[in-house]
Structure formats: structure tokens, C-alpha cells
């Protein structure tokens, strides 16, 4: 019998390394609340959003949940005080984009009750879709699955496309970000509440929950709880990285038509990961603003890896110390092991959508292996989930042929998932080369645009 052609080619099956397994176990229960650091730093640019506009002044006292900055344009989200305390200063700090961004420095009151400001609640059954969308925007939520864009923008775009389905992504963009399993187990009620809000705002009517087999039991438990209240289907997909990426997940689901999931690969669904939906369901019924988020802290250099509820603006060093950071840590990743960036400093604050940090021990980081020449084995072509030719792109990158890379070899389609790098027997740092090539190409194009205008 011929096997069904998968909806996207390639991908890899990742074995769970020891430390990922540990964080999965540790992350099975509810998230542990982290205490407040002595000072919280809140950049007005959070996640992949445009900067918000501050509405507080230096020296102002604020209550937990109070608005610190309002959304400034559609790509921006409001920022709420993660703790009751005093705005010490608003300072300009360098950001990665090469400019500066204002950062609100907040000193929490020691010993305060930290009671949160409660806004106006909204009933999803009676409110209009526009009102629900506005309420979502007011929470300041961003996508917690790794994309980090404003949630209301995604939901609004889906409503504009008239999608019929909401895909509840229980797979996740990265291995080791132990979110879905624990959320399904401990936050079922919040998940269901969040779904009702998102369905109303997006106009979708049916929900499909996608998980990999190791989470099937937990997912079935959630299905049993939700039975009767929601039009909900469960789809268990064989493990494959990076099928948790939204675009690929929609394809994978569309290819297994059961329970009436449409086969078209067009924009038929709004794809949101479980952590985001649960957070929406936690905030919206009380009209709360986003003041903290669940972050997975994992890796062999932590004594207590697991899921932590971290107040926004907490310095990473403080959060890792709370999880028992070994001073001999070799490498700290912002994000998961496949796409996460190695951080040069632990002083940066945790911002919205930063859902995982991995502190690798010496043994996990290993010694650097020198790259050899490409032997043209073609493994990367087999592994690429978007059917690019990473080997050829790598050879072109060495010659700085950025134009050919983009125009003939479609580098703009690259997800930077790392599959090609993972399988390369010559250990060529392909993803690094592609990122550099994309940056150079963008810079060159901006330069030509500037010349044309002049």
C-alpha cells in the first residue's frame, strides 16, 4: 500500500534529549509563581510589536494591572504594570534593531498585597465580535507560541478572511517548550473560556486540537471535559519537527481530512497555540491586562527546571537564579533548542512572548565541531520542510551571492527551522549563513530603495 503523501515534505523526528525530558516532567503541573525582582524593566517595544506610548511619568505610583503605556497603532499592544510600585524612571536603552527604545523602570513595593486592578468583564455570548476583539486588544496579549505578534491583529486578520476553523496548536513551534501538555492538564477551564472569546472574535465556529502522540492522553482528557460545550475535534499527528509552525500545521491538518476539516491549503483557519488561548481565557473574563506569562526554564544547568509564571520585566538573571542556575552554565538560549538564540548577557528583561529559556550545561553545549566542506549528500534537501535546496544556498552564501539566493533559490521561503543544519554530516552552519544572507540582502535592498528615492 502506498503511504499517503505528507502535506509538506521533509522535516525531522527529534529524539527528546535528557534535559527536554526533564523539563517536560517538571512542567507537567501548574506553573510556579516567581517572586518580584527588586526592579522590573519594561521596554515599550514588547515581542514583535511596534512600541507603545507611555502614559505614566517618572516617580508615579502605580497599582498592579494599571495601564503603563497605551497601544500606538495596530501593531502595538498596551502595557500594564506587572506589580504595584513606583515608576523610577523612563530611560532610553539600545535595542537589537539598532535604535533605542524607552524602557519603564518599575520598583515594586516590598510587602504590598499586589492586588490586581480588575477591569470590565465581557460576556462572549452577548457581546459583538468587534467588542470582543477590542477586549482582546485591551489585554495586551501577544502570541505566546513564538511568533510574538499582537494577538488581536492575528484574530482580526482571520476574521477578515472569514475563516471557519480555529486550530488549537498543541504541538508548539519548538521541542522543549513544555507548554501544551501542562496547559491542557491544569488550565482546561481557562482554555475553554479563551476558545469562546476567540471563536466569537474570529467568526470561526469549529475547533480542531492538534497534538503529537505523547500528549494524546492529556488531550483526550481535555476533550472529555469540553465535550458538549464546543464543536471540538482532536487530531493526533505523528511526531515530526517543525509541524508545529502555523503554516505547516495548517497543511498537515488539511491533508488528513477527517471530521470535516477542509482540504484546501488556503486561509481556512486561525491557528493559535494553547498557551495563548489559556492566557486569553484567564484574563478576558475579568477584564485583566497581561502582567505576567508562563515561561519554560529548562536545561541541565538548572536545578529546578520547569514552568514558571514570570512577571513581565523580570531580569533573566533573576528568573534563572530562582530556578537554581549553576554558575558553570555554558550557554543560555532565548527560545527552544532548534531556533533559540544564544544570549550574550543575562541582564535583559523577560518580555512578552519569550516563552522559553534554556540554560545548557557544559556537557549539553559540547565542544564546537569545525565545519567541513559540503559533500553534496543531499540530506538537507530531504529534510527541508519547504523544499528549498539548502546545500546550494550554503555554497552560494559562501560566495555572497545574495541576489541568486533570493531570486533563484527562494531564500525568502526559509523558515530557519534548522532541519538542514540538524542533518548536515559536514556540520555546516547553514541557518547562520541564511540569516546573515537575509540581513545583507535586506540592507542592500533598502539601500537601493533609498537611491531610487534620491
Amino acid at each position, binding site marked *: 500500500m502506498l503511504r499517503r*503523501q505528507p502535506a*509538506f*515534505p521533509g522535516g*525531522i523526528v*527529534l529524539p527528546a*534529549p535528557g534535559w527536554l525530558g526533564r523539563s517536560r516532567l517538571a512542567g507537567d503541573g501548574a506553573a510556579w509563581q516567581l517572586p518580584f525582582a527588586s526592579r522590573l524593566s519594561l521596554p515599550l517595544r514588547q515581542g514583535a510589536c511596534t512600541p507603545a506610548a507611555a502614559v505614566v511619568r517618572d516617580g508615579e505610583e502605580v497599582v498592579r494591572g494599571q495601564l503603563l503605556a497605551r497601544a500606538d497603532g495596530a501593531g502595538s499592544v498596551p502595557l500594564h504594570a506587572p506589580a504595584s510600585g513606583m515608576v523610577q524612571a523612563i530611560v532610553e536603552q539600545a535595542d537589537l534593531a539598532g535604535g533605542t527604545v524607552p524602557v519603564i523602570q518599575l520598583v515594586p513595593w516590598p510587602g504590598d498585597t499586589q492586588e490586581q486592578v480588575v477591569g470590565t468583564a465581557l460576556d462572549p455570548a452577548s457581546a459583538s465580535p468587534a467588542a470582543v476583539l477590542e477586549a482582546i486588544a485591551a489585554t495586551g496579549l501577544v502570541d505566546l507560541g513564538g511568533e510574538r505578534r499582537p494577538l488581536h491583529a492575528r484574530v482580526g486578520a482571520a476574521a477578515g478572511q472569514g475563516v471557519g476553523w480555529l486550530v488549537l496548536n498543541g504541538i508548539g513551534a519548538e521541542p522543549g517548550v513544555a507548554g501544551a501538555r501542562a496547559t491542557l492538564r491544569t488550565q482546561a477551564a481557562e482554555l475553554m473560556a479563551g476558545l469562546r472569546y476567540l471563536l466569537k472574535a474570529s467568526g470561526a465556529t469549529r475547533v480542531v486540537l492538534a497534538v503529537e502522540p505523547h500528549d494524546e492522553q492529556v488531550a483526550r482528557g481535555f476533550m472529555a471535559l469540553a465535550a458538549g460545550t464546543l464543536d471540538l475535534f482532536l487530531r493526533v499527528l505523528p511526531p515530526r519537527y517543525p509541524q508545529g509552525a502555523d503554516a505547516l500545521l495548517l*497543511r498537515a491538518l488539511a*491533508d488528513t481530512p477527517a471530521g470535516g476539516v477542509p482540504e484546501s*491549503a488556503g486561509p481556512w483557519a486561525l491557528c493559535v497555540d494553547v498557551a495563548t488561548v489559556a492566557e486569553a481565557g484567564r484574563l478576558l473574563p475579568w477584564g485583566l491586562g497581561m502582567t505576567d506569562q508562563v515561561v519554560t526554564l529548562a536545561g541541565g544547568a538548572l536545578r529546578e527546571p520547569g514552568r514558571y509564571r514570570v512577571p513581565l520585566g523580570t531580569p533573566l538573571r533573576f528568573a534563572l537564579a530562582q530556578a537554581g542556575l549553576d554558575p558553570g*552554565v*555554558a*550557554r*543560555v*538560549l532565548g*527560545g527552544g*533548542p*532548534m*531556533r*533559540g*538564540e*544564544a*544570549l*550574550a*548577557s*543575562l541582564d535583559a528583561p523577560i518580555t512578552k512572548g519569550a516563552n522559553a529559556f534554556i540554560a*545548557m550545561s557544559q556537557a549539553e*553545549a559540547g565542544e*564546537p*565541531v569545525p565545519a*567541513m*566542506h559540503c*559533500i*553534496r*549528500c*543531499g*540530506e538537507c*534537501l*530531504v529534510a527541508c*520542510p*519547504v*523544499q*528549498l*535546496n539548502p*546545500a*546550494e544556498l550554503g555554497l552560494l552564501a559562501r560566495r555572497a551571492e545574495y541576489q541568486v539566493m533570493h531570486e*533563484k533559490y*527562494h531564500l525568502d*521561503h526559509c523558515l*530557519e527551522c*534548522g532541519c538542514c*543544519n*540538524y*542533518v*548536515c*554530516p*559536514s*556540520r555546516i*552552519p547553514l*541557518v*547562520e549563513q541564511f540569516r546573515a544572507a537575509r540581513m545583507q540582502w535586506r540592507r542592500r535592498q533598502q539601500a537601493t530603495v533609498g537611491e531610487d528615492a534620491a
Partner: protein
Amino acid sequence: MKPGPRGLRLAPAPHLHGGGSVSRLMVHKVIALAPVTVFAVTLFGLAALATLVTAMGACLLAERLSAPRVPPGDGTALLTGLLLGLSLPPALPLWMVAVGGFFAILVGKQLFGGLGGPVFHPALVGRVFLQAAFPTAMAHAWVVPFAGGRASQLPDTSLAMPFLSPGAGYDALGGATPLAAARLGESFPPFVDLWLGTVAGAVGETSALLLLGGGLYLVAVRAADWRIPVALLGAVAALSGLLHGLDPLRHPDAVTALGSGGLMLGAWFFATDPGSAPMTRRGRWVYGVAIGLLVVVIRQFSGQPEGVMYALLLGSALVPHIDRWTQPAPLGWRTPR
């Protein structure tokens, strides 16, 4: 990787690796060739052993001399030497074998830029050089299988002094490959002998069965792409079968064609070498079929008794074009399915 502030080390994503390496691929290939090598030494005795050792030694030495700073740990030179030795006639003068080994590494590999650079398989380049430079020796240094005294003494031709013709030495060997014999009007040996390998031929090409087993092992451990040998052997079988159907007296049948000459060695171990094969999956089908058709055409319609070597070279010469024609379209540009 440079140390960051406070001892943090930086490295590009991804931070996991599948564990594959070039030396692991080479180890798999050597394992896959082990049964053939043992069989060759049983069949042709000291002559085969000396040829293999000389070829590998020459390749390692050439690599050492030409790239003294590169550690030879990846095993590619050793594999090149092994493949060269396996593809040579057993009684070839050893100094010629050494020359072939040096040529394979220095010209076939290093002149093309070292590992990953060669357009043609280096061992094949070495063999072609020998074929061109010493046509008489390459055409006559065959040994009859299971010759008496093979385990205790080398044929006189093996020990011929450099640049001196061993002259009558070849006539004493008395071997002729089945393909060459068929060219002279003799009939093929029974296909059981062909497949078992108890016939005259190059050191490691005679046993189609053992080569097939080794090839299947390579495919099983993902050290070779199955598409190339399947396409290649399929094309050989199809075209041979067609020709045999048209003229059974002139053309051998498909089973004989598949079991004779260097076809199995070429299909499983030379054609699958990634350096001289296309990278795309569709391209590998094209490449395999092209070589397979060329093998039959050269064998049946040219002055050469055996065509695998030239077919492989011509196939490799097509690779840049095949790669260009078969670039995959990115996902979403065509509907899947």
C-alpha cells in the same frame, strides 16, 4: 564560538545536531565493502590483496603529502583507495596501481578542491587514467578465479618493474572477463557463476550478490540514496531486456547484464557517491537512468567490452545540468499531491 560576557558562550542555532558525520558515512561504506573485499582475496589470492593494499596506501600517502594540515580522520582517501583497488584487474603491475592511486587523489580530488569538490569520482579518475595510460595491462591483467597457488605467490606481472613491459606475463594468466569473452564470440558463463562471482574480473566487481548485499546495507543505514541504483539497474534491465527480445543472439538477457562486469560495483558504490551525483531527488532518478542507458549502449554498440566506467563519467558530467533542471519548487508554489 567566542566567550561572551561572564563566560557565556555563543553559538548559532540550532543547538541540536543529528549526529551524522562524514567519517560515519565512510565507515558505513567500508563495512558495506568488507564482504566483497574478503571474497576478492579468497578468489584471487595475494594478487588481490596486494592490489588493494597498494591502492589504499598510495591514496593515503598522496592525501598526506598534498594536504599535510588536514587530518586524514574522515577516511575519504582510504575509501577512494579501496574503491580504486576493487575496480582494477587483479594482476595489474603494482607500480601502476600506485600511480593510479596518486593520480586519483592528486588530480581527481585535490585539483578539484578536495573533499566535496570533485566533479568526477576520484577513484574513477584514477582508473580512467590507468586505462588510458596502460591499455594493454588494463586489458590483459585478469586472473582466472581460484588459480592454484594464489595464496602463496604473486603473479609475475604484479611485480613487474616500473616502465618495463611484463610482455608475455599476461598470456600466462589466462583470464578473460565474461564481457570480453562474449565480445570474442564466446557464450556467457551460467548466470549463477556470474552472480556468485566465480569468474574472472576486476578485484571486487565479480560477485554481484555480495555487492548487492553491501548496497542494500548502505541504503538501510541511509549512507546512500536508493534512487540512484534503482534507476540505474532498472534502466539497464529494461534496455537489455528490450535488446535481448529483439536479437537474443547478439545481446545478453537482463539477468546476465545485471550480473556481469562492474555494474553492481558502479551502481551501488560509485554512482551513489554524493560528490559526483545530483543533489535533488528528481535529479537522482534522471542521473541513474542516464547512466544505466549509457552502460548498455556502450557495452553493446561500441568497441569497448565494458561501459560502466565511461557511463559513470558521462553521467557525472551531466550533473550540473541535471541539478539545474530539477531544482525543487518551494512548498506552496505548487499544490502538494
